């Protein structure tokens, strides 16, 4: 028997959910793999929702909203786009980025709704089951996805993405605008840093560890780990526990 993907969809109430209803009214037939969570606007979809779903082993997650310019709340889908892009970048650290998708489906696109869902089912089927799927989740990967989930909840990343449109589309008080590429570089660095820091915090969940241990465990440069430890200490998330020989052991607070 071929693999049947388990999919989740977040649909905005005003366009995509209405489009899905129209598909029904028109009796458009599409594969029954996706369960839908209705939200008022695609902008409501927190990156954590997508990551959590993947963490639970769901094979693919779809976010659908109104076409750009048509959002019932004016700009919600612009925000959705930014958040989705960030989520995708975070998930690319572990190769799960092709399991989430964003699309715009209007209230009149019943046929198209059926088409895009069918396509998603097909594409995820081609990818095969998620390495985190229920029966046999890849434990190492699971830890990384947990770190991604935590990273998506950090103030730094949320503030960056939340301000992204203002920063790149409007001038600041000094009359300057940050070009998109420059912002992206900034964001990319932040994403990687926060991801690594959350991995460190997770690794410290049970026992205290030295920088060297952590570096080996997480395959990171020791100097990098040390830098992160200092930041985390500054945020009062870790502290020295004891010094054994010459090596300080860190613990999570």
């Amino acid at each position, binding site marked *: 028997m071929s693999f049947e993907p388990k999919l989740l969809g977040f649909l905005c109430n005003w366009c995509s959910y209405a489009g899905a209803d129209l598909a029904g009214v028109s009796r458009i037939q599409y594969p029954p793999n996706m369960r839908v969570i209705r939200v*008022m606007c695609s*902008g409501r979809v927190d990156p954590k929702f997508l990551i959590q779903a993947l963490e639970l082993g769901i094979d693919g997650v779809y976010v659908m909203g109104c076409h750009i310019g048509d959002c019932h*709340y004016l700009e919600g889908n612009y925000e959705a786009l930014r958040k989705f892009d960030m989520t995708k970048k975070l998930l690319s650290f572990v190769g799960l980025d092709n399991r989430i998708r964003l699309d715009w489906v209007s*209230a009149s696109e019943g046929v198209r709704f059926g088409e895009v869902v069918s396509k998603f089912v097909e594409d995820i089927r081609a990818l095969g089951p998620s390495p985190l799927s229920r029966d046999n989740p890849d434990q190492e990967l699971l830890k990384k996805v947990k770190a991604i989930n935590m990273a998506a909840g950090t103030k730094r990343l949320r503030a960056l993405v939340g*301000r992204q449109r203002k920063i790149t589309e409007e001038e600041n008080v000094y009359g300057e605008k940050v070009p998109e590429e420059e912002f992206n570089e900034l964001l990319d660095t932040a994403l990687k840093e926060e991801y690594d820091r959350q991995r460190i915090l997770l690794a410290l969940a049970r026992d205290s560890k030295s920088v060297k241990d952590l570096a080996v465990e997480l395959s990171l440069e020791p100097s990098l780990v040390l830098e992160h430890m200092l930041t985390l200490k500054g945020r009062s998330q870790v502290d020295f526990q004891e010094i054994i020989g010459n090596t300080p052991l860190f613990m999570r607070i």
Partner: protein
Amino acid sequence: MSEEEKKEENVRVGIFVCHCGSNIGGLIDCHKLAEESKELPFVAHAEDNLYTCSETGLAAIKKAIEEHNLNRVVVASCTPRTHEPLFRECISEAGLNPYLFNFVNIRDQCTWVHMKHAQEAYDKAKDLIKMGAAKAVKLEPLEMIMVNITPAAMVIGGGVAGMSAALSLSRQGFKTYLVEKEDKLGGRLNSLYKLFPYDIDASEFIGNIISNVQNAKNLEILTSSQVINIEGFVGNFEVEVEHNGTINTFEIGAIIVAVGSSILDPTGLFGYDGNKRITQFELESKLKNNKINQKDIIMIQCVGSRIEERPYCSSVCCMTALKNALNIKDQNPEAHITILFRDLYTPGTEYEEYYRKAREQGVLFVKYDPEKMPVIEETQVKVFNEYINTEMTIPYDLLVLSTPLVANDDNKELAQMLKVPLEANKFFLEAHVKLRPNDFATDGVYIGGSAKWPVDITESISQGYAAASRASTILSHDTIEVEGATSCLPEYNKSLCTGCEVCVKVCPFNAIIKNEDDEIEIIEALCKGCGVCAATCTNQALVIRHFTDDQIMSEIFAYGGE
């Protein structure tokens, strides 16, 4: 609320699975679905109903609330977009807060779209109910927000639909503004000759309506005026109207869209030249000036409609052609008229008579096949006659093209200002074709006439009245309750708020401010509950009522497994 608190509150969920006749029950076993949902956490009762939305079904819900002491209700049936208000009302009649209701869509998004996969559809419905019940457990009672209503209406479009709406509203005593972008009222009717049925003179007819509008109390006419911006919400719109370079702002309670439609530019179709080959519309003005002396006249139906690019039927062209054919015969009984058609559409008790009369007077009807389009030559048309299976050659000195009504070019801008959708052909899309044909999904905005799809005069007038009547359901109240599912910064989350103000910037409605106490505050009447602020909040302090993180996460977990 934690699990502990839930137990303390003694959450009791009731689940009602609707057969919807055979729409759901014909494919999947609703009784079994209900039985199995009894196993779900906090579910105290489950049953299946033939039609949960019927009197009997609603009574069953009320009875179960009482008998089983339910404090959360889940209905698994059609779609919340049409039926949520009904069930909310039902449970509030039974004494529950209307927000303690959750809808599960197992028809439009399940049995109707998986008709060949009964088992999979069943599994999907079961998952959806599980998710819906999980969310229901987390639902919290909410209060609706009261807002005041400005008892004034604005009708956009001064054609026959708009004028009918404006007259009706002003006669009911509401201050009404009628906005027309041209310099005079009347719209398309100004250039028509005679109207079907009964061959009423168009100028006389529209002249009467215009003079009624001009003499109406409470009715202000704004010609050469254009709506350029709309802010606010039901009962409290602020509309900016531009007139000769000056901008005035109006406080409006309800808005009616009656902008009508446009005429397809026929350039390039069937040798159109505006002279010997003209549109029905141009024919009307010739008739008006008694200028039809041509002998051989051919009309072609469905020119530029019911094709791939424009698949819809323009609905008025058949009757227009019949009417004009008879009018030509009136002015010039010698004329030979041939109508090339694909299908003829003369519904109702009045219109078929036109077809009969036309045949009696010798109008010739030739059915053509869209696969073998008529070929237009300089003085004759070659057409393959389907009935006799041969090609005919028909001479003409006047060729009349029945072109469709199309959506206005500027519909898009108005739709964006109103936050309402357009359909695939760029006409305005109503909230529901059967249940709410003259409403938009956006509260306080209504629609009538050809802005929705092409309709004739009679229908335009009915729809104008319908839209006015819908608007008056709002305007006749001093206050109205609006959605209570807004954003909020709950007391218990106040300490989480870092005051970063990212939410203030991201809110599309300026509903979040930092108040004098330097605290984040949500102005609830402005908040529309989109949820962008919560998805953005840097420390996850903001909560979107009815779509809380906790509620959405519970749906994700119910599906993904703990």
